[in-house]
């Protein structure tokens, strides 16, 4: 029953995915929520909603990272979220 090894990533790809899951996905989640809070008039409901949607979003990104075969594709998606959110936070 254990998963077949040939489908699992190894070496640097594995390390890269673990880093993406813990740091990349967290940064993307946090910045995305703050960017949404910045772009609405009343940030309070958004901020309070983020106290639980953040964890759901973080885990969602974790699963996404593993569902996408190539680590660089996952990293690109995370970096796109991070940069767009950062621009919004900086501009507004």
């Amino acid at each position, binding site marked *: 029953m*254990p*998963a077949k090894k040939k489908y*699992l990533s190894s070496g640097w790809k594995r390390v890269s995915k673990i880093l993406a899951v813990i740091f990349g996905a967290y940064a993307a989640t946090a910045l995305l929520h703050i960017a949404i809070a910045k772009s609405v008039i009343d940030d309070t409901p958004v901020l*309070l909603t983020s*106290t*639980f949607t953040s*964890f759901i979003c973080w885990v969602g990104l974790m699963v996404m990272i593993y569902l996408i*075969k190539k680590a660089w594709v996952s990293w690109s998606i995370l970096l796109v979220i991070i940069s767009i959110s950062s621009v919004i936070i900086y501009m507004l």
Partner: protein
Amino acid sequence: MKKLKGLGNERYNVMFHTHTVSGIVISFALFVIFYAGAFSIFRHEIAQWENPDMRQPLNENFDIDQAIKIIDESYGGLNYYENTNIWLPTEESPVLRVYGAIDQTDSTTERMAAYISPATMEVQDIRKPLTTVSDTIYFLHYFRQIPVAGIYIAGLVALFFLFAIVTGLLIHWKNLLTKMYAFTKKGSWKSIWTNAHTVLGVIGLPFQAMYAVTGAFLGLLILILAPASVLLYNGDQEALVSKVNPAAALTVEKDAQPFEHLSLNELYQKVRLEYPEFIVKNVNTRNYGKEDAVAFWNIDDHQGINSTGSLAMRLKDGEVLKEYSLIPNQKTYSMSIIGFIFKLHYSTYGGNVMRVIYFILAMITCFMIISGILIWRTARNNKRYTLKQRNFHHRITKWYLAVCLSLFPAFAILFLANKLVPIEMTDRISVVNPIFFLSWLGLMIIGMFWNKYSLQNRNYLFIGGLLSVLVPIVNGVVTQQWIWDTWNSAHWVAYIDLFWFFAGVSALYVSLFLLKIKDETDIPQPIDYQEGDEGVDDLVSEMEDTEDGKKENVTDVEPALNSQLAIKGVSN
């Protein structure tokens, strides 16, 4: 039965692997969290069981002002500019608890906490408690015994629990509908554990997902709020707090004049009349005894999900300050959300029925965790692993089971130690708590010598059952309050005694008459690695297991099978 579209073969395997790794790493910690958490739902009732001061009938005619006065005198004056919070007597906790601040010599203040029993008017410092059974269990629930890091570890466990739930859901997506009722005892041990794990996982999914999210919220909120507070409010944390709690926006004068304002007892009756269905939990005062004194009456009916409220009242004339109050069930989204999460996590809605359901679901989750550990091991006890690897799997499984299953007897020992260590003894909690933790450790170590999982299970159940039956007896002998005495005077004490009695009797019955110990040991035995078609048999049977004995997944199986055979062909 209708089938949902599942993952492809590769993604299935990747999800399976992440589910296995995240699950096995957090499993024993998650078991401790759920087991201790289940008991913590009843922590106020356990506090009544453990502490003789709490075992008095509730006297409705308590005097809040006098309690403050007595505490003030015995602590040499409280600083009323700081929050002075008085928790009112309840059936489980029939004492008045005061949380205030006292001035230090260096012009700072220090928080104090004490309770007064209305019958004797004696003051007891809460910071130096007589007993800590419920606190020990509650602290264990979020690993507070581990300095600083404890709550963050618990939060991370909750986060990866959510990850394991989502990946587990994706693995079983295809057969999700059949898994709802696939109760069966047929097949090999592997398929019994697999079925138990998936069926209980699917049924308990909403409960477990709720706890994973709210648990991560309670443990890791700082990770969300810290960047938000820096980027949205330039690090001003008070701006953040006042958005959730209107009471935080209210200010009182530091040098206000002393004033003879209305009595808290009088205003308490007023709140009671206005909200007859509600329990007044506590009253939080600012500048008590001064001209601008304010009291916040916190109320809850323990039924609704949005029914917590806070009534701000000026003590000079008893007027309710609407802008600083929260009216139950009429709160805005922003004001509701935190209370909503707390109610879900602490099970303070839906009354006692909901608490019992929570307890049962938590125990089901504990069973699901154990079955997950056993799947992990059983699936690895085959030719695809070397003897060394299999020995490693065996040792890990044995440790994990020992940590988890020994909690049942260890909790019974904690309850027994609470009664057997004399209540008059000075500093008795530094005796009771080590007894609990050392006997838990001792029970774990003994468990490492039992090389059959069925034997571990039977023995822990037997020891736990024996100790559990003793709990109500020792309670009766030591306190002279047997179940039939407390049944009327303090019924929660009787319920806890009865819980231990029935838990003990059923554990003894199951361990002595129902459980069969396998003849063969679980220590990995050498397998003839040359013989037979290595791996392929397992692969076929495993696909059969996951498909409930039906080979409907043939298209998925074949490429995997062919590639396995191809690899074999090359190596031969």
